[in-house]
């Protein structure tokens, strides 16, 4: 009886000490993940997530304060990558499948240049009193221009599918 108690206590002490050592030895610095996440973010600081810029959003995502799905320009793909990185599962149904991009309705545009000024990627071309247009390839879909437009003539639309961008859908079967 005494021996048993003694042996078990001893084992507990030794193992506990080993665990403590291991914790110290294998300690991982916590934060490189923020760097990695900022690398993945669109980097346009559009502010749609509610943070001032992508860096702050990355910190919030890393600490779990906000969802990985908070970034509309990053869309489904970014959310998946982030979820993968952080080892969490997310409900992808919440995110719009296709990213949306700005389209200026040229018949209503007055050429006020307000959208042009707010665009974080200089994706809008045009000059004062001229109709503006969006360079699709440079648009992140942040929607800043839509908010800024006094004529309400900017629509966020999915990129039209053409032969070049079409790809095979998933097979229906099985």
């Amino acid at each position, binding site marked *: 009886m005494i021996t048993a108690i003694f042996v078990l206590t001893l084992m507990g002490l030794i193992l506990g000490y080993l665990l403590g050592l291991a914790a110290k030895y294998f300690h991982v610095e916590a934060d490189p993940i923020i760097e990695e996440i900022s690398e993945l973010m*669109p*980097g*346009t*600081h559009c502010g749609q997530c509610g943070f001032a810029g992508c860096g702050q959003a990355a910190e919030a995502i890393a600490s779990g304060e906000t969802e990985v799905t908070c970034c509309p*320009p*990053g*869309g489904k*793909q*970014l959310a998946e990558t982030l979820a993968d990185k952080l080892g969490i599962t997310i409900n992808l149904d919440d995110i719009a499948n296709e*990213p949306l991009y700005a389209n200026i309705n040229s018949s209503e545009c007055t050429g006020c240049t307000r959208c042009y000024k707010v665009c*974080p*990627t*200089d*994706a809008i071309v045009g000059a004062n009193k001229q109709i503006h247009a969006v360079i699709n*390839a*440079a*648009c*992140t879909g942040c929607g800043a221009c839509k908010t800024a437009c006094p004529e309400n003539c900017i629509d966020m639309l999915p990129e039209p*599918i*053409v*032969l*070049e*961008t*079409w*790809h*095979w*859908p*998933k*097979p229906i*079967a*099985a």
Partner: protein
Amino acid sequence: MKFSPFRGGVHPDGYKELSAHQAIEKLPLPDRLYVPLRQHAGSEALAIVQPGDFVMKGQLIGRAAKGISAPVHAPTSGKVLKVQPFVAAHPSGMDSNTVIIECDGNDTPIATPTNIDPFSLDGKTLSDTIANAGIVGMGGASFPAAVKLSSASRQVVNTVIINGGECEPYLTADDRLMRERPEQIILGARLIRHIVNAENVCIAIEDNKKEAISALRQASSEYRNIQVIVVPTLYPMGSAKQMIQAVTGKEVPAGGRSSDIGVLMHNVATTYAIAQCLSQNEPLVSRIVTVSGGAIKHPKNIEALVGTPIKQLIDFCGGTLEEPSKLLLGGPMMGQLMPSDEVPLIKGAAGVLALNNNEISQPSASPCIRCGRCVSACPMGLVPLEMANHSRQQDFDGAIGFGLKDCILCGSCAFVCPSHIPLVHYFQYAKGEVAYQKATQQRMDHTRQLSESRRARQEKEAAEKAAAKAAAKAAKEAKAAAKRKKQNAASANQ
């Protein structure tokens, strides 16, 4: 067991007897041609004609875009009716920009410079001529021929292989071409050899085309360095990588080109087009196409203009016996389903097939039983069942790990799958998704760059503004000080 030059492969029923004995016939001029500006791998050609323009046969109507592209020429003389989107020869059923020409029936050719002996010109000039003639790979991939030639001529090419495999069931267009016009093929082969400065030429033909073999042997008898090689009939022998392995015993390194191992390969139809272009100054505006399948009344091999609606080809064969269950462009293994019979013939289409219900099999897919037949059938050494599994779960990295990027979409795996799993469809889907993700990533990198440069510019502007302000302020102060000084001086003087 028969010696097989590459691993895997399958033996689909040939059905070549349907059209193999039919000599090439020329299709009468149709009323209208629908010439798509995208008939090749790479970017769409840019239209240079307007509705109302009159074009001659062989006149350039679409110039090659930047990067990998090929020009498009008017197949006959007539009036351009419209340049507009029209249903494309593509499984998506989407439209692509098409020049619609109303034929005037005269088939007047554009004036061409007089012929010079092509062998007296250098390779660069010849391959430019081929590029300007809009010649693309006519075996199916439609890769611009000149791009292949000029990139090959930057490396040492020992062997030019002329691919007369034609392993797809039903198709006999290349077979007939080799039987009926062997001299032009030999000429084309010699020209390609001349362009890339190669030592020898191998014309590789599957052993089920005896007449073609003897025709080419005869035509090439006077050229010592042209060899006709007989390869076993095995699908996908006509695939470039497999054919190269069968002929040379070497494999094209992954991610590399055939010229990395000193080989350049062209299809016989492409070789013929090259010969026509360099000896007759004809751009690529027509091709030989097999119209066959169980639903076709009289299967034929037809020489038709690019842009001819496939309905007219079918009508020329006496129409259909029944409503075809599937209308395909290309062979049954790699050809794609066409959205309608209005689709125009394109440069890369070797066949138009109207298959009836007995010829297609499409029972619904059942679960994979892991029998491994796809693994044995794959000529690339991939594990199709795992690739499909990972693709289904959208684990594209996993699918790439099992060889998605090396897949040539030959369809051997799906052909043998007892569970009827649409394996190739999974791979098409996965490849599309991977490309889309890559494009999205590139877009994001691009926009990030733009945003950073904008911020840098704004900061610079702000700094400049501040500097200007500071300078202005300093100037003002200096002025004021000077004034004060002056005043002081003035008052001191007084």
